[in-house]
């Protein structure tokens, strides 16, 4: 339920918010290739062309940033020391990260594995561009999934792609980035949408 908005008369949707708007719109189902879909919706979809450039996408102002602009990071190996350090530092000593025998008994894990949040943290460390620039803030992430376990010795690298842009005001706008974390075999281990606020 949406608080506010029109009554039932406002398009047949009591407390329906934007649902009321849809009564005055035509819904169309589109079947298309990833490139055509990106062209129609204005949002990058998986499989569509990516644009790799010399400049890091985080150096781009909101208006300059092109949908599809992509960064592939270098690789980083995840060691057992990394996992133990992260566990002690954060206090997250869940057995899947700390106890080889117990982890093996779990149907999902081959043995001790890296924390999901360690993967996320390493991913940020790989794609971030540290100097002050147009990226004003990271303000969240959506649709996070951990797809495959990461074992000690695995290497991770990240693809960061500008997915959609939504202007907020004259000063800044929201950029939604499609993020894929892949292992040394090219298998995706994690995926999510990162949200940043970028200066105009």
């Amino acid at each position, binding site marked *: 339920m949406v608080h*506010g*908005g*029109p*009554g*039932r*008369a*406002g*398009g*047949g949707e*009591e407390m329906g*918010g*934007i649902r*009321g*708007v*849809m*009564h*005055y*719109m*035509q*819904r*169309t*189902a*589109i*079947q*298309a*290739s*990833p490139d055509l*879909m990106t062209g*129609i*919706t*204005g*949002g990058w*979809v*998986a*499989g569509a062309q990516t644009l790799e450039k010399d400049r890091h996408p985080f150096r781009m102002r909101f208006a300059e940033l092109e949908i599809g602009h992509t960064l592939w990071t270098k690789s980083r190996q995840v060691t057992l020391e990394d996992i133990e350090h992260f566990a002690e530092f954060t206090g997250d000593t869940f057995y899947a990260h700390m106890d080889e025998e117990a982890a093996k008994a779990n149907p999902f894990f081959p043995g001790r594995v890296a924390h999901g949040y360690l993967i996320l943290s390493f991913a940020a460390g790989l794609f971030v561009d540290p100097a002050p620039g147009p990226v004003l803030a990271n303000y969240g992430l959506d649709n996070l999934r951990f797809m495959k376990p990461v074992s000690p010795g695995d290497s991770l690298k990240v693809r960061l792609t500008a997915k*959609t842009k*939504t*202007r907020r005001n004259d000063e800044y706008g929201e950029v939604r980035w499609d993020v894929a974390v892949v292992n040394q075999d090219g298998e995706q281990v994690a995926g999510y949408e990162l949200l940043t606020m970028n200066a105009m």
Partner: protein
Amino acid sequence: MTILPLHSYAAGRWIAPSGNITTLKSAVTGEPVAEIGSGGLDYAGMAEHARRTGGPALRTMTFHQRAAMLKALAQYLNEHRDPLYELSYETGSTKADSMIDIDGGIGTLFVYASKGKRELPDDTIYVDGALEQLSRGGNFLGQHVATSLQGVAVHINAFNFPVWGMLEKLAPTLLAGVPAIVKPASATAWLTEAAFRMMIESGLLPEGAVQLIAGPTGDLLDRLGCQDVVSFTGSAATAGMLRANPRLIANSVRFIAEQDSLNASILGPDASPGTPEFDAFVKEVHREMTAKAGQKCTAMRRLIVPDAHRDAVIEAVADRLAKTVIGNPRDEATRMGALASLAQRADVREKVEAIAREARLVHGDPQRSTSAEPTPRRALSSRRCCLPATTRTVPRASMPLRRSARSRP
């Protein structure tokens, strides 16, 4: 008082009442307030004007631009709204009632402006839901999108909220990029016309985005096609008649109806007299009966109370009603104004009589007219409170207090 000639606004021109002209009367005094008649309108021309001029202009704007337009419109109406209260008194509304209608309607514009900015893209296309992978390799995808209908929205509005009723439909329609033809209920149309006139005077809406029919809609519904929408508020009987229009059926014209709202409020057995829940129930019942003289779509039409609390509820509600000052809505002491028209009063009396055949009348006299004025020419609303003499027994299991939706049309 000057009798207002209610103008229609068609294809960029104001058109004076013509054809069969009806005199509209004050809900308070019965004096003529306005004249209405739309016999001279070119209805098909209005629909075409909306489709050819209004629609294309709105569709060049993104959702964010349309949202900004709604916000500017809301601000304009907010600054210019004072004369509307004066006209609203003649519909029987007290100042508090008028605020629900006028301020509430403007508030809805603001809400939609804000939602459009935050929840819709700065684009003309809305992506609806997630991508569907149609081929195994992901090289063939499916996606639903929504785009503006390329037709006209016909808004047929009810008498009870002359301003809100118009604005709550215009907000989502204009945000969607669709032009509208507004047809207010005649009984209170002078207030709608005044608010509509302000929207045109604001210069904020593109030409053809909104038009007004002050009077009957003629053959307009017979002129609609598959990209058009009819959005109706009123009785189920009228909705049923309109939606059976062969042209609407043949062309699959979208028909949205809010009709004959039916709301109940249920008192739980644990909310016994003396509890805050009991008091809240009584207060809410009283408010629903008196705000807008009970003419709200969310007004409670059934109260279901445990047998044990029945007499206490009747007594408490009747007590509150007895203290409610009914009268001329212009009088500051008045807490409950008049029904919107004499036809409404006749309808209420008829319904009270029908209910009273099976139920006991516990407060008021439906045939007695009350007024705060010394020599009323016409009657004001009747105070009424009918509760069934027999109530259904509620199971003993503890039930939470239920309250219906708050003050909304």
